[in-house]
């Protein structure tokens, strides 16, 4: 009797297992091509509906802009030259435009405000150590960050965003796609690489569009070779100081822009080489195919672009740099003023690192700056400047630890670097090292969050660092053999 009741209930109420069992057995009957036939049905319906709904007005447009532009921008012959030309123009505008406001800002924040702050502190009888830590350390670090970084960013980011909104970046991806395939990587890596030009952490998150874990890891590890927000200003500044100054002033901007483009290109080449290497060693496999849709060109909305690129990128990056500059400024000031024996801690560290730095064609100050600047690449140049002033007590341009006068144009930087014993080799290697070294701590943390693997995080961190050291070492050795002491 009880059995019968159960049977009735079971007959009426179908269980989850029963559904799954039925599905399983039916699946066998249907065979393999279910997925394809489903897709076919969808395509067929889509075609039918669109046929009914869309009519193309029979009126030949006079000139199809999109087609013509695409033919030019993605052609085998003109695609790459145009890409280089556009990049060069963008950097040239940035470099020649940032020069003057940068100097003005520096002279205002450092020449005018700094002494006022010192006076105010003295009036209130602030203890010397506190005054030094706050005003010479933290305030000066922020002042340097703002004056060095704000002008190039305020020019570069809007230009770059305009290119993005116009629809140019997917064309770049299209041009690079076949190269990525040859390197055994996913074509979408061109997109994540382009995202990396804004911020590597964003580029790393963007690799989620890549389905295959193997290709995704390649994209994550090589994203660091895309110069990010924080490193563009370094490249631009060093290029204009050392490389631009070697030619007549009229050509300076153009030549420095070319140098920055060259470094960015080297980054792309390293991306391919590293991808190729990884896909043949620890991340073996075939490249998978995908379809990339070229979006239509859209006239960018100038005002909105200016607004979003200023708020989202410029202010965002600047704010981040300032936040990291605060502790860095304190560290720099302390290292320059806490003495062990007759030398400050900073001097000990710089002297200790100097031999190794020189071996790489860099110097102790640069290496020490890179360690302080691990949290954010943005503050490398300001850190180097402050360390040079405070620890080496660069004479002629500074007075005491970190107080400066007479800021004219970029002159001040040139004098400072000369005082620190810099040569053209130092500049070139700094640009190279800035391109190829460990990712910043935000990027490292993002890599860990995305991969959930200490192993891959470590590889992504140390692989570029080792590569950077090797590249700088070889460049320095070859330079010294052929060009002389540097």
């Amino acid at each position: 009797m009880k059995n019968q009741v159960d049977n009735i209930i079971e007959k009426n109420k179908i269980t989850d297992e029963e559904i799954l069992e039925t599905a399983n057995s039916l699946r066998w009957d249907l065979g393999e091509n279910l997925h394809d036939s489903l897709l076919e049905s969808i395509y067929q319906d889509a075609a039918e509906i669109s046929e009914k709904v869309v009519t193309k007005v029979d009126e030949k447009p006079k000139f199809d802009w999109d087609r013509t532009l695409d033919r030019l921008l993605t052609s085998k012959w003109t695609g790459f030259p145009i890409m280089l030309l556009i990049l060069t123009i963008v950097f040239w505008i940035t470099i020649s435009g940032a020069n003057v406001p940068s100097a003005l800002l520096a002279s205002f924040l450092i020449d005018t405000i700094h002494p006022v702050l010192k006076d105010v502190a003295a009036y209130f009888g602030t203890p010397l150590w506190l005054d030094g830590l706050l005003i010479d350390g933290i305030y000066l670090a922020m002042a340097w960050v703002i004056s060095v970084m704000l002008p190039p960013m305020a020019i570069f980011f809007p230009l770059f965003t305009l290119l993005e909104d116009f629809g140019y970046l997917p064309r770049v991806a299209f041009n690079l796609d076949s190269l990525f395939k040859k390197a055994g990587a996913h074509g979408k890596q061109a997109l994540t690489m382009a995202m990396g030009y804004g911020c590597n952490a964003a580029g790393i998150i963007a690799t989620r569009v890549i389905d295959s874990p193997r290709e995704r890891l390649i994209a994550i590890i090589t994203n660091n070779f895309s110069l990010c927000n924080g490193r563009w200003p370094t490249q631009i500044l060093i290029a204009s100081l050392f490389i631009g100054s070697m030619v007549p002033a009229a050509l300076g901007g153009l030549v420095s822009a070319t140098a920055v483009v060259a470094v960015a290109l080297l980054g792309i080449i390293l991306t391919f080489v590293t991808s190729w290497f990884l896909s043949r060693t620890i991340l073996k496999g075939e490249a998978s195919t995908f379809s990339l849709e070229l979006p239509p060109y859209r006239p960018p909305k100038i005002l909105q672009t200016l607004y979003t690129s200023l708020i989202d990128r410029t202010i965002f990056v600047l704010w981040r740099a300032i936040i990291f500059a605060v502790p860095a400024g304190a560290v720099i000031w302390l290292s320059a003023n806490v003495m062990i024996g007759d030398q400050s801690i900073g001097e000990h560290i710089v002297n200790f690192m100097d031999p190794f730095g020189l071996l790489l064609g860099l110097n102790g100050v640069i290496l020490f700056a890179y360690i302080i600047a691990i949290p954010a690449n943005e503050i490398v140049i300001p850190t180097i400047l402050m360390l040079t002033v405070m620890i080496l007590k660069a004479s002629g341009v500074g007075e005491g630890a970190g107080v400066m006068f007479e800021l004219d144009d970029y002159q001040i930087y040139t004098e400072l670097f000369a005082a620190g014993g810099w040569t053209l080799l130092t500049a070139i290697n700094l640009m190279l090292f800035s391109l190829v070294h460990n990712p910043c701590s935000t990027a490292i943390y993002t890599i860990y969050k995305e991969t959930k693997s200490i192993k891959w995080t470590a590889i992504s961190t140390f692989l570029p660092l080792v590569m950077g050291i090797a590249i700088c070492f070889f460049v320095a050795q070859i330079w010294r053999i052929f060009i002389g002491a540097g």
Partner: protein
Amino acid sequence: MTNKLNNCETCPVHQSTYLKKLGVNMDRWDYALALAGNPNTGKSTVFNALTGLRQHTGNWPGKTVTRTEGGFIYQEKRYKIVDLPGTYSLLSTSTDEEVARNFILFGKPDVTVIIMDATRIERNLNLTLQILEITDRIVICLNLIDEARRHQLRIDERKLSKELGVPVIPTSARKGEGIDELLRAIHEVANGLYVCKPHHITSGSKSLKRAVSQLVEKIENRFSGISNARWIALRLLEGDPRIIEAVKKGELDNLYQRIENTETK
């Protein structure tokens, strides 16, 4: 006539009577919306137009990988809106497609707004038809209508709406055209004033049809009142692991309850 309408809806006084942009300040809401669509159809632009947020909208596919949330108030109802990653399909297993698919199915949006690129109707329909299988609360936003005009395309949105059985609103989100009509349509579907009768994929082999109807019968028996039994059946026949798991865990039960609740509201 369209011009007149445009003048009216771009006028700030007219908009502000009904729409209040909330940005990210959403703690409670009456209705949840999902924004779905192919990559680079302007989902983020529509999202910004509705929420007043300024998510950067890049002109390239794959801008939004994770979902972004925001909110607005329209006609005194609070709406939460989720911007899903753009996908071409919901059938494969890549992360972005799963995020989009799972949210439409398990996230229980009250209305799914599908953004279609008016210049690429046929390709966009592939995704649209798949979403129509999953849910029956849909508004289609036919975006980039200005670009379609520029490309000499004429689109009969009424016929499209009839074919698909859901409201179709032509918009140009960049210029703010059609946003007001879109809001009205969302409001109507969310409040049950407009009942969608979504198009279902018709063709298919005989053996498939038989298999589907056999399974649909069982699913409808198990989860009475379920609206997307056909789609679930198809997914089970394909062996979709996430849907199999959902059946095992009884997650579909909750879906059914939700539908009942909102209908009694």
